């Protein structure tokens, strides 16, 4: 872990975060007190067995869900204070989310999909050029008018990454981005993420079950049963 990034302010600062799901009468604790700081330019892999709370944590960090208790500062902003529309702006401006199942809209082509976050922002200037540039940066400059069903899984996931990057967010969150891909496409997607982190210094948090994928990250966070087991750095 570099001293330089430790010295700056964390972009993600999670303190004693808990999340309970209500299942009928009983409460299911999905997160039971998470403390986690992630600094600008870091690439962190979250690992852990199925049901340990990885997706739950990612959704909290991505402002898609609200915690039961605890605090979450994103870029020094206390997220629990924000109203619905302010959260929408945070999701639009500060966060890029990549899903396991790509989540592209099937009716519209790659370019339109990548344009969506720009449409929901205040700055719609040069919309098309910016979306094209994002697609170019993930190596799909020649596929901009393909519909999702005319693209391979790996290509769809790269479109999703372009969409996540197009508003230049502070953090890129990826929940099992290679989970649905064969090893070759998975490797391409991972190379892309690593490249982004190293060249553009993009902060990346990704969830993975694959140790070789996790090993490419600078830090691994292990989750067990809603708690972080070894929050220290791996070399």
């Amino acid at each position, binding site marked *: 872990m570099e001293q330089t990034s430790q010295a700056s302010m964390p972009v993600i600062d999670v303190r004693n975060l808990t999340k309970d799901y209500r299942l009928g009468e009983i409460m299911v604790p999905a997160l039971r007190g998470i403390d986690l700081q992630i600094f600008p330019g870091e690439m962190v892999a979250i690992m852990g067995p199925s049901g340990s709370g990885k997706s739950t944590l990612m959704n909290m960090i991505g402002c898609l*869900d609200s915690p039961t208790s605890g605090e979450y500062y994103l870029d020094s902003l206390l997220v629990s204070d924000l109203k619905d*529309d302010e959260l929408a702006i945070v*999701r639009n401006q500060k966060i890029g989310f990549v899903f396991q199942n790509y*989540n592209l809209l099937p009716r519209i082509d790659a370019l339109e999909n990548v344009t969506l976050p720009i449409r929901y922002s205040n700055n719609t200037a040069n919309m098309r050029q910016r979306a094209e540039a994002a697609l170019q940066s993930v190596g799909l400059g020649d596929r901009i008018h393909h519909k999702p069903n005319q693209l391979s899984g790996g290509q769809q996931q790269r479109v999703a990454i372009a969409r996540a990057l197009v*508003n230049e967010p502070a953090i890129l969150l990826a929940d099992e981005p290679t989970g649905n891909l064969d090893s070759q496409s998975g490797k391409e997607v991972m190379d892309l993420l690593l490249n982004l982190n190293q060249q553009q210094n993009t902060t990346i948090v990704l969830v993975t079950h694959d140790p070789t994928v996790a090993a490419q990250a600078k830090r691994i966070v292990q989750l067990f049963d809603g708690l972080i087991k070894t929050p220290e750095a791996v070399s």
Partner: protein
Amino acid sequence: MKIWQALKEAIASLSANRTRSFLTVLGIVIGVGAVIGVLSLGQGAEASIIGQIESIGTNVIYVFRGNTLEDVTNPNSLTTADADALANRTRAPHILNISPVLSGQSSVRFGDESTQTSIMGVAENYAEVTGIELSEGSFFTESNVTNRSSVVVLGPKLAERLTGRQTELVGTTVHINNYPFRVVGVTKAKGGNQFSSPDMDAYIPITAMQLRVKRQTIPNAVDFLLIQAQDSQSIDDAMQEAKSILRTSHRLSSRQPDDFTMTNQQDVLSIANSITSILTIFLAGIAGISLLVGGIGIMNIMLVSVTERTREIGLRKALGARKFDIQLQFLTESTLLSVFGGLIGVGFGWLLGEIVGAIAANSGTPLVPQISLNSVLLATLFSLAVGIFFGWYPALRAANLEPVEALRYE
């Protein structure tokens, strides 16, 4: 997100589901079509009724016996003597013509053909007062009236019914109430419906009517008087003059109320107007209910659509869509559906009006449907309102979805 962008997306999403969109729109098409059809027929009917009334002449005053507003015991009958008293240039300078009318049902026979119809006993200037024109011959004259001549003017339908023709009838003889009458003229067709049409009437001198067809206890009593004013501006003056003359000839003291009632064509017009308007509004209201049913259809489909697209909504929220953006998206879709349906409905309603109008014309009732810009605007605005009203709840439901729940939805 800008409105035009929302429109573009809505069009794309609706055309992705063409069959469903079409079926949903159908409810609105039928609703708006029914409203437009009813309104156009109502306005057509109004125009045709007003046209018929106006063809009698707008400066005509009717005088009836009795008073509906005040209690009058034993009102005097209106008589031909009253009509003579009114024909007084100095006391009534604004009155142009007077015709007493005494009508009744009687048999009319020509050779072996005979029918029952209404016989109008009138004065020679009745044709001028009511705007009747002749297709052959001429109306009977003042001397025919004084001499109680047995002459008759036939309506064209009556002539057709009796003789099988409408021409070359002058000089022939028909029997009315078994008395022979010489035909002196045939009137031009005026229209009307199968229940009442001046084209089925026969006109004879009122004196002949009193003598041969309708004998009465008071020999010179008539049903009503028709007064023609000089022009439509002098109607009020003419009514005042007629009133004072009739009061004198009926020997009414100043404390006694009128024992007759006067109405003019304007009053009849406005009554006819309000009756057709009320009917039209009533029918359009009923038709409007089907528009509500169409609206419920839209609401139903929008709810289905929101459920189907839960993941899409979740994704859009994850990408930064605000509640307003989602709401706008779905409201645009529902409004587009209903306005589109409304526009097709206007065309459908026009067609409906034309068809009913053609059927009516075929059965002898002239009815030209009229579509006014107002009713088109009203229908369009109404369908816009239906789209917003019935789209509101589904759109709100979409906007209020929790992003994480929506994304997890299978």
